[in-house]
C-alpha cells in the first residue's frame, strides 16, 4: 500500500512537471484548445441536425443525448489530461530509445510514461462538456444538488480512469510496433460510439462496449442514473475501473518482460 501511494505521489510530480513543460508552449496550447473546441461544436450541430427529423433516438430525447455527450466529453478530458502519453509509447519512447532511460529509474516505467502526459488541449473539452451538462440539467429540470455535484465529479474521474486503463492496455502494442498510437487510436474510435446511448446499437455492439471494452461504464450508466433510468449500474463503474487497471498493469508487466529479453 505504501508503495502504491508512493507511486501515485511520484506520478503526480511527473504530471506537474509535464504541465510546467506544456505551459512553456503557450501559443500551441491556445491554438490546440480552440481547434478542439471547434470540432466539438461541429459534433453538436450534427446531433442537432439529426433531431430535426426525429423527436427521440431509441427513447432518448435531444436534451438527454446532449447530457450524455457533455458528460462523455468531461471524462475524455480527464483521460487525455492524465494518460495522453499512452499514444507516445511506440512512436516516441520506444522508437527513439527514450524508454531504456525510464528503465533506469527507481520507479515503475508505467508511472514515468503516463506521467509525461501533457495534453492541455483537452481542457477545451472540459469547458464545453461542463457548459453542455449544466445547460441540459437545467433544461431537463434535474435539480443540481450538492450530492449530484459530488457524484458527477466522482464518476467523471472514474470514467477518465476507465478510459485511461483501456488505452494503457492497448498501448502495450508499442512493444511490438512503433505504430502503437494508431492501435490506441482505433480503440478510441470505438469509444466515441458511446457518445450516443448504447440502446441504438445492435446486440453485438452492446455486448462489446459493456463487457469487453466496458465503455458503457464511463458515461452511459452514470447518465442513466442522473436521468433516473437505472439507479444500480452506475455503482459498478468504480469496480470496473479497478479491474481494468489490474488488467492494465498485468498486461504491461508481461509485455515489459518480453521487451527486455528481445532488446528491440
Amino acid at each position: 500500500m505504501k508503495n502504491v501511494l508512493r507511486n501515485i505521489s511520484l506520478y503526480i510530480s511527473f504530471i506537474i512537471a509535464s504541465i510546467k513543460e506544456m505551459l512553456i508552449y503557450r501559443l500551441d496550447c491556445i491554438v490546440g484548445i480552440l481547434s478542439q473546441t471547434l470540432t466539438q461544436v461541429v459534433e453538436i450541430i450534427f446531433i442537432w441536425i439529426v433531431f430535426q427529423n426525429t423527436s427521440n433516438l431509441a427513447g432518448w430525447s435531444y436534451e438527454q443525448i446532449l447530457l450524455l455527450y457533455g458528460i462523455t466529453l468531461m471524462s475524455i478530458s480527464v483521460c487525455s489530461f492524465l494518460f495522453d502519453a499512452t499514444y507516445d509509447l511506440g512512436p516516441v519512447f520506444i522508437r527513439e530509445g527514450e524508454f531504456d532511460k525510464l528503465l533506469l529509474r527507481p520507479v515503475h516505467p508505467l508511472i514515468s510514461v503516463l506521467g509525461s502526459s501533457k495534453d492541455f488541449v483537452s481542457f477545451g473539452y472540459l469547458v464545453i462538456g461542463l457548459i453542455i451538462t449544466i445547460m441540459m440539467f437545467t433544461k431537463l429540470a434535474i435539480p443540481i444538488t450538492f450530492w449530484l455535484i459530488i457524484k458527477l465529479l466522482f464518476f467523471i474521474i472514474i470514467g477518465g480512469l476507465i478510459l485511461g486503463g483501456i488505452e494503457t492496455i492497448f498501448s502495450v502494442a508499442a512493444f511490438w510496433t512503433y505504430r502503437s498510437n494508431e492501435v490506441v487510436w482505433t480503440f478510441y474510435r470505438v469509444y466515441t460510439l458511446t457518445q450516443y446511448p448504447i440502446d441504438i446499437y445492435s446486440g453485438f455492439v452492446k455486448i462489446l462496449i459493456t463487457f469487453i471494452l466496458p465503455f458503457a461504464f464511463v458515461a452511459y450508466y452514470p447518465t442513466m442514473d442522473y436521468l433516473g433510468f437505472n439507479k444500480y449500474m452506475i455503482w459498478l463503474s468504480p469496480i470496473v475501473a479497478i479491474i481494468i487497471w489490474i488488467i492494465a498493469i498485468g498486461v504491461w508487466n508481461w509485455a515489459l518482460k518480453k521487451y527486455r529479453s528481445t532488446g528491440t
Partner: protein
Amino acid sequence: MAIIEAKNLVKEYKTIIKDKGILGYIKHLFKPKYEKFTAVDGINFEINEGELVGYIGENGAGKSTTIKMLTGILTPTSGEVIVNGLVPYKSRIENNKNIGAVFGQKTQLWWDLPVIESFRLIKKMYKIPEGEYRKNLKKFTELLDLEDLLEKQVKNLSLGQKMRCEIAATFLHNPKIVYLDEPTIGLDVLVKENIRRFIKNINKEKNTTVILTTHDVKDIEEVCDRIILIDKGKIIFDGEKQKFKDNYGKNIKAELIVKDKVGNMAEKINSENFTITEESNELIKLKFSHEKTTIMNVMEEISKYCKVLDIHMQESELEDILKEIYKKG
C-alpha cells in the same frame, strides 16, 4: 567482495531477415525468418567496490549490450549477473536505487524544464535527504561549473553543458555504481577534462564504482585503473592498465640524435631486431620490440656507422596499442 559479478554472460539478439523486394516483405509477413546474433558471448568478470574500470572495444564489440544487462534493462540470454547482491533484471527497481547511468547523448533530464527542476524530481524519485541533496548540489555546481546553467531549459543547453548537467544528475543520489556509456562523445577537450576530474574526485571521496566505455583513449588513460577489453562479445584482456601496456605495448620507439653519419642507415643495416622509421643527418627514429632485443644492442649496431649523442625512448601509447589490436582483428 565483488560488487559486480558476471558469470558466463551471454546475449543473443534475434534479428529478422527480409528477402529483397515486395515479395520478400510479403513472405516475411507470413513466415518471418530470424537470425541469431551473439552480441555478448560468455563473459566473466568481477569488479570490486571503488574500482574505476574502462570497458573498451571496437564498435559493435558488445559494450553497450553488456552494460544494459548489468543495469537490468536487458535480460541475459544465459549466464548470471549479480550487482550489489541483487540480480538486476529480476529486481530492477531495487537495483536502480543503487546505480546511476549515462547512455551516450540520451538525456535523463526533462527537456523543456530548467535543469534545477529535473534535479528536484530526481531528488524526489530517489528519496534523497534534503541535507545530502543540498550538499551534493553545491559541490557538483562548483566542480562542474553549473552555476549559470541551473535555471536554463535543458533544450537550450549546448552538448557540453548538457553533459555536465547529466553527469551531476547521475551522481546526485550517491549511487554505489555508475555506468557511463560514452559520456565524452562529441565534447571539447576542456569539458572532457572537467568530467574526468569530476569522476575521479567522486570516486575518491565516496568510493563509487565506475564502469566507463569510451572510444577516447585519454578517458581511460586518465580515469581508469583497470581495463577490460572486449572483442566480438568475448573478453580478450582483463587487468590493470599498466599490465595491459606491458602485455601489448612491446613496441618501443626511440629517437637518436647522431653526428658524423655516413650514407643511408636503413640500407646498411638490415636487422630483424629493429626498424628505422625515419632518418636524417642528425636524427634517427626507430622502433623495436622488447622481446627481441634491448636498446643496448640497438645502440651497438647503430654506433658502427655514426656517433650517438643522445637517446630519447618512448613506450607505446595506449592508442597505438589499441590500434594494433583492432587491426589484427
